[in-house]
């Protein structure tokens, strides 16, 4: 795997739209070609090299390309958008749409990300070592096809609207989450190791939510079924199983109604 290193040297006046920072756009290019890739500030087109020092070279294919981005990226959008393979490491806070519509490869952010990370994600892995913003692993507006595959791990907290319209894949949040989790979900798995607020599984058709900490308020559409002994992301324990959203439509499989499942860990 070849590595390209980007180090931000000029902060944009407004925000930098850098959908070209992906292994797919870099693949087969040398540093002097990569600096010419387009980025945008408002309506102005610039070169990537106007904002970043670029060194190293990309591999022949996205899968053979690793990108390391250094510096304060909190005004840089779209890092790793639509990437299909390879690796991106962002050493700093990043703005919106990290790994949005991602299909493969891995993104590591050593910092926080703003909203819409992993929007419409189909595959690959996003590891966020800080906090994530709102709409992590959610669907784009209007789309009923949210996160379909892949894995998102957040070491810190996540914002509101986690996994909206989630259909598949996995999201693990080490800390707390804000309101609205797995709304309209029809599949997938969300693990919350900290506390949750309200509106978990609202309008949920199918899928799984695991909460290790407290839930401020349970949806009225979730009913307690039973206690179960399970292992979740390496933690074994007793969980209370709730099913819902009872107000929502549900499929039947083998004569059995399939509900969304919400497991809350029972403290010893």
């Amino acid at each position: 795997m070849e590595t390209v290193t980007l180090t931000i040297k000029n902060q944009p006046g407004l925000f930098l739209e850098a959908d070209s920072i992906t292994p797919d756009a870099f693949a087969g290019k040398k540093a002097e070609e990569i600096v010419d890739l387009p980025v945008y500030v408002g309506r102005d087109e610039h070169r990537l090299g106007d904002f970043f020092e670029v060194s190293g070279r990309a591999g022949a294919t996205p899968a053979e390309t690793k990108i390391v981005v250094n510096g304060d990226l909190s005004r840089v959008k779209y890092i790793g958008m639509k990437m299909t393979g390879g690796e991106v490491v962002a050493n700093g806070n990043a703005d919106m749409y990290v790994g949005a519509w991602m299909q493969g490869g891995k993104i590591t952010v050593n910092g926080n990300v703003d909203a819409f990370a992993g929007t419409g994600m189909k595959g690959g892995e996003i590891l966020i070592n800080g906090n994530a913003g709102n709409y992590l692993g959610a669907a784009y507006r209007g789309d009923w096809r949210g996160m379909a595959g892949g894995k998102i791990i957040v070491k810190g907290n996540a914002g509101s609207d986690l996994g909206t319209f989630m259909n598949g894949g996995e999201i693990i949040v080490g800390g707390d989450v804000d309101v609205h989790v797995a709304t309209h979900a029809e599949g997938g798995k969300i693990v919350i190791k900290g506390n949750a607020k309200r509106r978990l599984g609202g309008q949920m058709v199918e899928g799984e939510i695991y909460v290790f900490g407290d839930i401020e308020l349970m949806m009225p559409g979730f009913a307690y079924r039973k206690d179960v002994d399970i292992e979740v992301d390496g933690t074994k324990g007793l969980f209370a199983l709730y099913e819902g959203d009872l107000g929502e439509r549900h499929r039947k499989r083998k004569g059995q109604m399939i509900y969304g499942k919400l497991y809350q860990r029972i403290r010893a």
Partner: protein
Amino acid sequence: MAIRVNLITGRTIQQGVSMEAGKEKPAYTTACGIIELDPADFKKLGAFRNTNVRVTSNYGSVIVKAVEATQGPHPGVAYIPMGPWANMIVNPNTYSTGMPTFKGTPVEVEVAKSEPVLGSLELVRKGCRGELA
């Protein structure tokens, strides 16, 4: 003595009429530079009707006149008609929807008898220039 209440904002007919008559006019301040409190909350606050109060949230602070709620009872809920006074203190968090959280901001209300309720233009102007207390 300060009380904590849950603040909501919205339209009133007086707000609408005075807005159309001119936001620079005193009638607009009379209509919107107010906080409607439930009688029970007045009691807790230990204030008379029509006393100026300071309303403070995590996001700001504003002086308005405390009046008795006309569409109550709603103990624990306070109402400031939509407008620049309410907007000094509402929760601007949009939760990435574009919409600030205009309704449901926890606020503290305390009597501020001697402080004036500013007119809308002055309030916004002074706020922008950093001239508000």
